């Protein structure tokens, strides 16, 4: 089994555009007719549903931002009668008021199909044992991959995250072949596996992992692949758009195919809103084409990335998105410079450190300070002042080269930075408390 829905995943670009145009016209009308908040946005922009005849008219439509979703909380964007809604999911709300997304059964089915495509692209079929270690509950991670695994017909282990020794026990006892969780949790499972004296491909038999919901680097991918003995695939999504499976990686492991029969992707200049040409770095914007309950048209993701349409060796024709460089929500502005935590992580891994770190930003005497705490083991260091100072200086230099500003490095003992079993909390910005 190579594709879950080959007729969609390998369609010609002309076919894809035709579907997108036809669906966009309907979707805009649906939102205009049923979501007063969006109707107001369109009216303010001076655009009517009949102005939208194909995807060439997409740029005429207003954007929806997280701000709008907060304003309209909780039911403002619901486009069907409540009786049609079968499920909700919610964002964690760490960047402000949470967003609640609504799903009809049709919405759930299409979302699960997207996740099924991701599982099949990672080599999964009905013979696989899929261990879902994303959190279950309001978070879309668990439910999305769980549903996708059902659609594929795999044996699904609804583990949720946490209780790592039990996760490993199930891998051993049931012979799990595919692991789905956040990359930081996958790395943690690899660490625990090693500490338990167990070996990949001997004591456990995973072949693939589908990891998403937080930024991670190529180096981290290689580390996870080694520690778990798998091929690690990236998956992308966000609650507002449906959840994981908006885009997924194929065997090439070079960017994620966006499920273009359901979503249109654009890249815009985050400052001006101008649509940027393919291959340019900017903010990713999604338009959902098949949503019943929670239509999202030109939703600004805050993710910074690049789109590229090129022939893929896997045979899929869907456009690819590069791994986001970070959410603009995660972006720190330190001494006027844009800094993404993922850049610092890249340096750490390049320099041979583990991705266990904490970034602390503060403001002292009106100057921003950047402190990076990095875990080291006793093997990483010698006990002379000279060696430790040299190591810290080398790391500080490498970070300066990457982000353009200096950081104070603190090497700390392994285990002293809190581990998370869900999303990693790696940044502490104390400046907000003062402002």
């Amino acid at each position, binding site marked *: 089994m190579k594709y879950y829905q080959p007729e969609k995943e390998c369609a010609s670009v002309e076919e894809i555009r035709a579907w997108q145009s036809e669906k966009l016209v309907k979707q805009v009308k649906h939102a205009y007719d049923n979501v007063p908040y969006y109707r107001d946005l369109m009216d303010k922009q001076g655009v009517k549903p009949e102005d939208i005849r194909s995807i060439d008219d997409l740029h005429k439509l207003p954007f929806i931002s997280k701000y709008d979703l907060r304003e309209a909380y909780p039911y403002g964007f619901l486009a069907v009668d409540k009786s049609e809604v079968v499920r909700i999911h919610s964002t964690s709300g760490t960047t402000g008021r949470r967003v609640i997304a609504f799903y009809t059964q049709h919405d759930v089915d299409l979302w699960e199909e997207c996740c099924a495509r991701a599982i099949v692209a990672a080599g999964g079929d009905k013979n696989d044992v899929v261990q879902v270690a994303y959190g279950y509950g309001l978070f879309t991670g668990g439910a999305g991959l769980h549903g996708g695994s059902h659609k594929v017909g795999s044996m699904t282990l609804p583990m949720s995250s946490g209780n790592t020794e039990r996760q490993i026990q199930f891998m051993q006892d049931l012979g799990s072949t595919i692991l789905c969780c956040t990359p930081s949790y996958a790395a943690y499972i690899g660490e625990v596996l090693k500490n338990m004296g167990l070996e990949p491909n001997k004591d456990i038999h995973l072949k693939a992992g589908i990891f998403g919901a937080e930024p991670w680097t190529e180096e981290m991918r290689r580390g996870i692949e080694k520690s778990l003995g798998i091929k690690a695939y990236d998956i992308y999504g966000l609650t507002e758009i449906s959840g994981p499976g908006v885009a997924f990686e194929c065997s090439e492991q070079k960017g994620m195919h966006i499920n273009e029969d359901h979503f249109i992707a654009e890249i815009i200049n985050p400052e001006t809103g101008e649509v940027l040409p393919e291959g340019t770095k900017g903010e990713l914007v999604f338009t959902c084409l098949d949503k019943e309950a929670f239509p999202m048209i030109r939703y600004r993701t805050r993710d910074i990335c690049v789109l590229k349409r090129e022939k893929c060796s896997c045979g899929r024709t869907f456009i690819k998105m590069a791994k986001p460089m970070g959410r603009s929500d995660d972006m720190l502005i330190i001494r006027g410079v844009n800094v993404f935590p993922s850049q610092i992580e890249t340096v750490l891994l390049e320099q041979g450190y583990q991705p266990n770190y904490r970034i602390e930003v503060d403001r002292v005497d009106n100057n921003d300070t950047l402190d990076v705490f990095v875990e*080291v083991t*006793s093997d990483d*260091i*010698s*006990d*002379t*002042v*000279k060696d*430790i*100072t040299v190591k*810290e200086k080398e790391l500080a230099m490498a970070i300066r080269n990457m982000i353009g500003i200096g950081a104070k490095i*603190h*090497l*700390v*003992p392994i*285990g*002293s930075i809190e581990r998370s079993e869900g999303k990693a909390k790696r940044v502490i910005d104390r400046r907000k408390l003062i402002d």
Partner: protein
Amino acid sequence: MRIKQVSVMVENKSGKLAEATGFLASKDINLRALSIADTQNYGILRIIVDDPEKAAHLLLEAGYLTKITEVLSVAVPDCPGGMDKIVRKLSAGGIGIEYAYAFPALEPGTAYMILRVDNNDKAEAILNS
């Protein structure tokens, strides 16, 4: 003679050293010799104890960045020029000394130097020659 020294990184903040020495005291670890080096961020507490493996294990468990290093313990005559003789010998043999500290021995007339050098084997051979 080669002995095992336990090094503990201690954050360079007031109270942190007391925290570490308090921990060692609570575990009944007797310090036979010690030295403290400081950098901007850390102090490195280097100690000689009866059971270095046990001490290192306890410290690691308590979350201290701890390392066991093999150092040389050399008996020197407790008189002017005693240390000079050793240092000259090593220097002439091309041995680099990373750090050193000394403590008096129980028997009068002798002191012990703890030396961390860049080549233990060669340094021992030179000192024994």
